[in-house]
């Protein structure tokens, strides 16, 4: 009797295995919000083209996602077939050589790279010039300001944008007239200035030879302006993405915010939807052109379904309809240039008081230059922020602070 039962169990197991073998293919995609939603929205179109292939979207929070991708590449154990990466991680991940070169056959992205915004293609390159990722959305820098606070202060948009000097002077007037801070944190202004003045071929913190650039005038100017803002009590000392940051926007305690164009979507959707109609967008002060963030697709070398992965990536990045849909639903500014001519760009944005701000942001994409990414950029960012805190809070001399930062960076870069 037992042998009969055993036979039945074995038969059931074998048939189950056979069924599993015949089951449809599964393409795994690892992503973070809101790229995960954009991919899921594209699945009906994907299934029409590939009816037998199921796409499994593994969604994690932004930081957890990149930690998981680091682990997946380090062990080469079951990495996803498609990996979404934020712009600051692309070059870091490229250093290890664990990503496919999409510029070379069979992908041959080099032949179609002219279809994308130029700086986003530069962001997708490794230090050896390989195209290890393909851009899907970008973050052209913009200055959002509270029109109502500006009017109460008797100021015009130009007062904020003509120069950094006029920006700070306008901040003094806004603070005096309305009590609102010019900017959430003086650090935000430093971040923008160091991004704006990058020379061609240079990185944000390191030159092409890997030497630190933090003692250059770009950083001195950034630190000086941040110091002026703090001395005039124009910043709320509020860190981005904190509760106070959101509350400051809701209560009208912060008059301007410099960030990627996507910030308007965040303000509208969850940060401060009640401030609809009160904000306006402009280009950054003193004709500064900078990018904040952006998302890319990459294929790990250890992926098992590279052909299908490339098909999905093409759908998400080279298909104008998908790119436009992502822009409309998630404020993911398209990296695909052909979409920039769509009528949607000319539509007014209710949150920005019916301003046609997308045209401004499109203009910005034509001026932005990508800074070369160095493997120590995250560390450098931390070092510079630490020294800026010492300047702002402890009165440390700017030149000395930058020399100290330089020493720390050179020590690590030499390893």
């Amino acid at each position, binding site marked *: 009797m037992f042998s009969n039962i055993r036979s039945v169990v074995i038969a059931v197991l074998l048939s189950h295995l056979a069924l599993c073998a015949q089951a449809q293919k599964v393409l795994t995609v690892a992503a973070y919000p809101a790229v995960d939603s954009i991919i899921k929205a594209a699945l009906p179109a994907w299934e029409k083209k590939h009816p037998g292939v199921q796409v499994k979207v593994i969604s994690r929070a932004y930081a957890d996602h990149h930690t998981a991708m680091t682990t997946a*590449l380090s062990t080469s154990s079951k990495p996803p077939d498609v990996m979404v990466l934020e712009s600051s991680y692309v070059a870091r991940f490229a*250093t290890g050589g664990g990503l496919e070169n999409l510029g070379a056959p069979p992908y041959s992205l080099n032949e179609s790279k002219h279809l994308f915004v130029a700086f986003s293609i530069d962001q997708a390159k490794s230090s050896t010039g390989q195209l290890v990722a393909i851009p899907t959305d970008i973050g052209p820098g913009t200055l959002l300001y509270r029109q109502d606070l500006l009017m109460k202060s008797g100021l015009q948009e130009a007062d904020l944008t003509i120069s950094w000097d006029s920006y700070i002077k306008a901040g003094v007037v806004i603070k005096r007239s309305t009590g609102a801070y010019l900017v959430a944190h003086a650090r935000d202004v430093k971040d923008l200035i160091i991004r704006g003045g990058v020379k061609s071929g240079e990185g944000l913190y390191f030159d092409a030879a890997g030497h630190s650039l933090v003692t250059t005038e770009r950083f001195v100017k950034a630190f000086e302006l941040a110091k002026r803002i703090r001395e005039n009590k124009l910043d709320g000392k509020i860190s981005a993405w904190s509760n106070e940051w959101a509350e400051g926007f809701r209560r009208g305690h912060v008059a301007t915010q410099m960030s990627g164009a996507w910030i308007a979507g965040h303000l509208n959707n969850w940060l401060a939807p009640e401030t609809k109609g009160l904000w306006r967008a402009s280009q950054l002060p003193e004709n500064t052109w900078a990018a904040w963030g952006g998302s890319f697709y990459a294929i790990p070398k250890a992926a098992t379904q590279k052909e299908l992965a490339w098909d999905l990536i093409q759908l998400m990045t080279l298909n104008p309809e998908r790119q436009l849909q992502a822009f409309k639903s998630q404020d993911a500014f398209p990296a695909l240039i052909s979409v920039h001519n769509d009528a949607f760009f000319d539509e007014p944005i209710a949150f920005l008081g019916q301003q046609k701000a997308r045209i401004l942001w499109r203009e910005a994409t034509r001026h932005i230059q990508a800074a070369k990414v160095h493997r120590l950029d995250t560390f450098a960012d*931390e070092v510079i922020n630490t020294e800026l805190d010492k300047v702002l809070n402890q009165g440390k001399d700017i030149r000395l602070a930058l020399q100290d930062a330089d020493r720390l960076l050179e020590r690590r870069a030499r390893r």
Partner: protein
Amino acid sequence: MTPISSSLQRRPRWRLHPKFVPYVLLAPFVLLFFIFGLFPLLFSLFLAFQSWEPTSGLTNMTYVGLDNFIFTLEDEWFWKSIKNTFWLAAVSGIPQHLIAIPLACVIHAQFKRTRNATVGAYFLPYITSTVAIAMMFSTLFSTDYGLINQVISGATKLPLIGSFFPQQPIDWLGESEFIKPAISFVVFWRYVGFNTVLYLAALQTIPKDMYEAATMDGANRWNQFWYITLPSLKPMIFFGVTLTLIGGLQLFEEPFILTGGRGGSDQSGMTTAMYMYRTAFDFNDFGTASALSWILFIFVAVLTWLTNLAFKPRGGET
């Protein structure tokens, strides 16, 4: 053939020989320990002597000898993190025991019917999610909208003592001089209940006869506490202090969440465990992070040994 011997012969062949049974029963634990305990430990030791770009895969490691250890020991941020860790361990740890011992004595002596509820209330923070706690305190510590600053602001209006309170809102989690006290308070609040439960358990083992005899000999409450309670609690104090010491030196969750994972202004809240995590996952240097973890282990081991020495029974003590 007898019926007994035939029944023995019918015993299934896969039945284990008794001498293998202990090994089979131990196997699940041993297997799990090897995979999740010993292997990561040894791999971390191996990594400490390697230079490794993690995204390049496991095969791309370069042996660098003691380079990672030397780099760590010469790294000023490492020493800053050690200083922060010791500060936080001391300021959050010592009051835990100074409060928990008398608190346990009061609960033991005074609370009868409501004792379990009182102990439960003190123990609650320990079993609450760290993320929930840190988020709650982030809101309480908020500079402009937090309850703590509102209370301080209200206190400034009090007659006579109002001028002793800061007149401007305190940036608890933004300014370097306030970050460590803020984190210490959260850690203290979270673990004081756990230590109270430990001491309460120990108090219940002290024979009542000793107190009765002491009372008959004329000892007052303070004498009884000093000469009976405290010496009797010594083994539990050693246990509690050791746990606090190890936990304090490995402090990660509370400062990580309260400072947004970066350690705060001037890295005032960056503990060594946090720096280790950031070195690995933010700065992509797993070799140095592993070396750092082993140096931290040496610190923990030496301090635990010193604690053991401090609590070791001396001549005449039992």
